[in-house]
């Protein structure tokens, strides 16, 4: 067990001390085996089972004292076994959530009690006792067991066993033998598991890609048109994925263009290869989301995705197969592999080559390097050395390299392997240093065929930038600006001819004009995502951050604007922060301050100052998309400055300021400060501005901030609701509409605001927006209606303007957020019988019901909540519910969910369903009682309340009362009475009252101290609670009297 655990089990990386077992299939099967072993231990080896451990195993358990049966002394929260060790210590001791066990017998009994928590217990036990054998047998025995691994010492061990005539030692060794057997079994089975899932390594992927690359290009015979990494940068560990993704086991990302379909974006991770979300055009970041199954390697996924690939690859099958097989055997030392390689060429295309070439190849071992992609770097170096030694050969590495670069099409043809020269190219190429160096000239060559004239002109200008003095540089910079810098060809041309390096270099000179010219260009071309990335790679950001300190305001502006453009992705934003850019940018905001000075002289400077502040805000806006930057902005004192700028009369300044605030408002701290700085007032004021973008951002900021109640009140107090409501009338600008409806939604959470909205007739307008709007608008509109519906008056309004039909129609959507809101709104409407008739007529209940099948727990829960008022208010609800085929079974099965909110909502739905006797009978048949009973051990008050209600309802049928008792639901229910929530008390008292109709339940309640708790409840001001509690006590008391009577008569 010890070996298997330490070697095979996958522990989380949390560190040795606090490590927990990961939830992997492998671990699960290990645990199951261990559990099976321990469980059967008691019966199989009764003698050994009594053996007392050297040191008891101790772990935090989830078992309740009530779960222990005969053979244990239960007192309050502690449990002792009746079996004692020789020293009189109990073999099992539970106190609170801490359990100590010191014999196999007890362990197996414990697992027996634990039932479905077996695995959990076993896991907890192993996690707490990383070295169980040590504890069971003591340190000395551990040594024996470990030595035992060595076959030779087995005999010695037997000898020792004979010598040790001591009974206990005998037992010990027997146990250790048993454990060892288990260990072997475990290792065996886990080995099988492991061998099934080969984990990919950066090296193997690199080799695969290299190989495929050589087989790619234009032409019919190649397997792919192209295959490229998304990033040229390779980390020391061979990964190309950014470090935070490497944490997820991702190695690199590829863009693959097969012959017969569009670009495929792949993620290679240690677990396998899968399709990702591709590169997002606006942020140029990779969408890491997995969009396909995980395939075991690159070839198998490409086979699946491209028919052409699998067709062409099968032509190379023989060679490829060799590769794959080799890879699997990779655990062998490389030396062996190298020895094997000479056998391979006969299967490869090389066999067709002229004898001389063939001989040379075999001697150099290079053909095999070519055809087996599993070359380790070590081997590679060796082979390079070898080839250098054989300098006498006509083809030296350098020479062939030049051949490659001159014959650009050679690569694609080489696959066919028809000419021996081409193959030579390939061979020597495989010994060239690295992939990147190969790639660079390639790209240029590809481009040369159709390079636009701009390319050459830009190249010339860059030459003058490099070699000119200040005057020539300025001329070249100005001339470069004449090109259409928003065009990608020009942007990339500047990058490809090394212009970015020069431009960034110019930023470090003293010459203001050169800096200005350079920044003007960088500002333009940094709209291109690739350029942004290169600028960051070249270390441009820190220099720009330094320029922010420059006394020249023009420079400050340009630098800030360029930063605003570049900081569109995470790494860039982090760089800005790390170089203190945030603080400087925040300081730029101070510039627009000194306008109070009346001296005429200043006005010219003031315009510039406003511009500086605007650019600063613009850059902050970009930067504020990162969480840590938001914090940095706040720490640098950005909020009061932004608040001040918000009062500025300059419109173009307001947009970035509000944009930044809106980004930042997702943070709790910010919302507090925004309140404190009286920013809401300005936001509300700007809602009435002329500028649509500004209105949009203001609404967006209000949307973010209005999560907070005080803020909602502030919006109302500053008269923000009216402009919001009136903005609804203009529906052309969808982005603004989405923001405005969002703000209305959040504001509508406050009742007073809803009243206001009703005055403005917003509800009618919102209903009008329920059709023909994009989803992002709909989500907010429906959310707002859902909030408004909480008041009966508004429900009537919605019904009157025909809002129910479109709402019900939206129930068939797929957008999760929308569905959550729609179900909520429909549910709220259903609280009114008149609306309910409409919903019923539109078949809304069926739609809600089918949403219970939605994969998203939020949607499920929301749908279940919505069903409650529907069932409550529908005419003939029982019949309606029964009419849904399989509907009741579906609901009952949702009780197996893990999500507390789903469980609570389903319990509430069951409470309503169970009001109909017939339905109650059906759900009883579907096993609602055991499922509800199983949920009883919960600490969630919301769930407790609805669960108790459901139980009390379900008691009304047949022998359900007794069944709840049998399934041990009573004892936990009694504990609910200790909860602080009075709603829970009421529901529980009612449930207990129902349960107390059964004598056995009364006994359980009494045993668990229900009477005292209930007596307190009788004194409650809540009449329902009073009554239920009293009724329950009465039942218990009656039973007691009856028993007494029976005893004495």
């Amino acid at each position, binding site marked *: 067990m010890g070996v298997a655990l330490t070697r095979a089990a996958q522990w989380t990386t949390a560190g040795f001390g606090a490590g927990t077992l990961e939830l992997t299939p492998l671990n699960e099967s290990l645990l199951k085996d261990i559990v099976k072993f321990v469980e059967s231990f008691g019966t199989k080896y009764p003698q050994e089972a009594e053996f007392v451990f050297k040191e008891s195993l101790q772990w935090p358990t989830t078992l309740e004292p009530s779960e222990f049966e005969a053979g244990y002394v239960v007192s309050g929260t502690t449990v002792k076994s009746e079996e004692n060790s020789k020293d009189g210590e109990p073999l099992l001791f539970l106190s609170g959530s801490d359990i100590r066990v010191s014999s196999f017998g007890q362990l197996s009994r414990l697992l027996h009690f634990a039932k479905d928590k077996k695995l959990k217990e076993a896991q907890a036990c192993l996690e707490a006792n990383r070295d169980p054998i040590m504890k069971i047998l003591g340190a000395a025995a551990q040594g024996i067991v470990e030595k035992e691994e060595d076959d030779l010492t087995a005999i010695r061990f037997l000898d020792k066993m004979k010598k040790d005539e001591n009974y206990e030692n005998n037992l010990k060794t027997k146990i250790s033998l048993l454990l060892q057997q288990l260990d072997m079994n475990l290792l065996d089975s886990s080995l099988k598991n492991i061998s099934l899932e080969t984990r990919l390594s950066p090296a193997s992927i690199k080799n695969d890609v290299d190989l495929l690359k050589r087989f790619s290009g234009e032409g019919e015979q190649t397997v792919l048109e192209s295959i490229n990494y998304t990033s040229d940068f390779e980390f020391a560990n061979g990964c190309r994925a950014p470090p935070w993704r490497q944490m997820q086991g991702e190695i690199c990302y590829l863009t693959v263009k097969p012959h017969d379909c569009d670009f495929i974006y792949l993620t290679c991770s240690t677990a396998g290869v899968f399709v990702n979300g591709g590169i997002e055009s606006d942020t140029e970041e990779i969408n890491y989301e997995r969009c396909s199954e995980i395939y075991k390697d690159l070839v198998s996924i490409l086979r699946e995705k491209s028919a052409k690939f699998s067709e062409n690859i099968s032509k190379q099958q023989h060679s490829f197969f060799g590769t794959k097989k080799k890879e699997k055997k990779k655990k062998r030392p490389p030396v062996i592999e190298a020895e094997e390689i000479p056998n391979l060429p006969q299967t490869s295309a090389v066999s067709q080559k002229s004898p001389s070439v063939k001989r040379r190849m075999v001697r150099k071992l290079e053909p095999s390097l070519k055809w087996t992609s599993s070359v380790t770097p070590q081997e590679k170096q060796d082979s390079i050395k070898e080839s250098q030694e054989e300098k006498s050969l006509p083809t030296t590495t350098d020479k062939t390299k030049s051949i490659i670069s001159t014959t650009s099409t050679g690569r694609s043809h080489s696959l066919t392997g028809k000419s021996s020269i081409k193959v030579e190219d390939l061979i020597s190429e495989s010994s060239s240093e690295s992939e990147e160096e190969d790639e660079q000239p390639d790209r240029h060559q590809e481009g040369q065929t159709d390079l636009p004239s701009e390319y050459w002109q830009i190249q010339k200008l860059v030459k*003058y930038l490099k070699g*000119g003095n200040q*005057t020539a540089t300025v*001329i070249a910079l100005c*001339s470069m600006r004449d090109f259409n810098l928003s065009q990608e060809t020009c942007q990339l041309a500047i990058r490809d001819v090394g212009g970015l390096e020069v431009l960034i270099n110019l930023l470090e000179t003293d010459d203001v004009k050169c800096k200005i010219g350079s920044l003007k260009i960088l500002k333009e071309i940094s709209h291109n995502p690739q350029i942004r990335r290169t600028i960051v790679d070249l270390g441009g950001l820190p220099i720009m951050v330094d320029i922010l300190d420059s*006394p020249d305001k023009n420079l400050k502006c340009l630098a800030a604007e360029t930063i605003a453009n570049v900081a569109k992705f995470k790494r860039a934003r982090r760089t800005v922060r790390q170089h203190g850019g945030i603080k400087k940018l925040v300081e730029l905001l101070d510039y627009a301050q000194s306008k109070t000075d009346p001296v005429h*002289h200043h006005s010219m400077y003031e315009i510039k100052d406003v511009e500086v502040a605007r650019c600063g805000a613009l850059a902050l806006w970009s930067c504020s998309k990162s969480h840590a930057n938001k914090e940095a902005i706040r720490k640098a004192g950005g909020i009061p400055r932004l608040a001040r700028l918000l009062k500025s009369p300059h419109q173009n300044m307001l947009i970035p300021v509000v944009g930044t605030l809106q980004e930042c408002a997702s943070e709790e701290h910010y919302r507090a400060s925004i309140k404190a700085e009286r920013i809401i007032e300005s936001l509300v004021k700007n809602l009435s501005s002329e500028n649509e973008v500004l209105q949009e951002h203001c609404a967006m900021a209000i949307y973010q901030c209005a999560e907070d109640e005080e803020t909602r009140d502030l919006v109302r107090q500053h008269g923000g609701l009216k402009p919001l409501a009136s903005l609804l009338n203009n529906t052309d600008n969808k982005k603004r509409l989405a923001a405005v409806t969002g703000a209305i939604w959040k504001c509508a959470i406050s009742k007073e605001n809803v009243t206001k909205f009703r005055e403005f007739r917003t509800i009618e307008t919102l209903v009008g927006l329920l059709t023909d709007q994009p989803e992002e608008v709909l989500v907010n509109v429906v959310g707002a209606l859902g909030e408004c519906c909480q008041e009966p008056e508004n429900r009537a309004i919605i019904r009157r303007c025909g809002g129910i039909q479109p709402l019900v129609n939206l129930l068939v959507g797929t957008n999760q957020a929308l569905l959550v809101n729609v179900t909520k709104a429909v549910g709220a409407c259903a609280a009114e019988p008149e609306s309910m008739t409409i919903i019923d007529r539109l078949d809304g209940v069926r739609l809600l019901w089918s949403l219970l099948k939605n994969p998203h727990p939020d949607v499920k829960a929301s749908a279940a909540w919505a069903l409650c008022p529907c069932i409550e208010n529908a005419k003939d609800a029982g019949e309606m519910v029964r009419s849904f085929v399989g509907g009741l079974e579906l609901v009952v099965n949702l009780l197996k969910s893990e999500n507390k909110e789903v469980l609570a909502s389903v319990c509430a739905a069951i409470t309503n369903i169970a009001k109909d006797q017939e339905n109650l009978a059906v759900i009883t048949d579907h096993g609602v009682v055991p499922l509800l009973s199983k949920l009883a051990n919960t600490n969630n008050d919301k769930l407790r309340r609805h669960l108790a209600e459901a139980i009390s309802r379900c008691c009304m049928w047949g022998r359900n009362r007794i069944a709840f008792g049998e399934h041990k639901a009573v004892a936990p229910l009694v504990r609910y009475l200790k909860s602080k929530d009075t709603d829970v008390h009421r529901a529980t008292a009612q449930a207990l009252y129902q349960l107390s109709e059964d004598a056995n339940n009364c006994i359980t309640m009494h045993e668990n101290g229900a009477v005292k708790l209930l007596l307190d409840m009788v004194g409650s001001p809540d009449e329902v609670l009073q009554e239920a509690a009293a009724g329950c006590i009465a039942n218990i008391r009656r039973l007691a009297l009856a028993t007494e009577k029976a005893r004495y008569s």
Partner: protein
Amino acid sequence: MFPANRRRMQKLAESLSKTSKHFNKHEIECLIKHFHTLLEETIEKQGTTGIDRNAFRNILHTIFGMTDDMIMDRVFRAFDRDNDGFVNVTEWVAGLCVFLRGSLEEKMKYCFDVYDLNADGFISREEMFHMLKNSLLKQPSEEDPDEGIKDLVDITLKKMDHDHDGKLSFADYEMSVREEALLLEAFGPCLPESKVPWEIKMIWYSHLFEDLPYFIVIHAIKDFNIVNEAEADICFGLIFVSGTPLFSPIQGMLTIWSPVSLPLQKPVSSSWVQI
């Protein structure tokens, strides 16, 4: 200075201040005084009324940090309006007016005059070549170094020659500069802004206050953290407006007069106060 001289100077200042757009009478007085100082320093022969070419180049070099001989010659030509080989006091004040305070229009006019080597109203291809010939670093690999310059001239013409007549008229030049301010000094630095560190200008400015040692002015400005010309201009503007220097030495200590009116908040550090 003799009272007669003083009267004459005041009269001159009076008349000049009527024509000068950017300097007031007091400033012009200072400039005239400074001109005479320069004249005394640089000219051995007494009796001349202007600064000759060499002396002027010397001034440009030491004060404004200009290095290009040809451009400095052209600057002298631009200053020396009457072409007598000397910059006299009127020309000096008028030149500096553009040099230091000129509007964009004045500066454009001035720069164009500097670049128009033969004063025919056009900057021709040859003139450009002449001005740009030292602008590229000699690269050993290049076959013909002139080729690069010619190319650069072509680029410049493409950029600036709006009427495509193969030469730059003032209209061409003006249009280009308005499009792109960086092209103001397209063919070489001929204005003080671009290169001259403000400290050097301060040295020069400090001649305007005959009462005050220039290092005090520099320290004062440094400690006020005036970092660029615009702020310095404001500072001096205020000084001239108030008509009194900000600083007056009292028993070895300096008192600051009303810095409140300045847009500068930094307090004066003790490092120079104790002189």
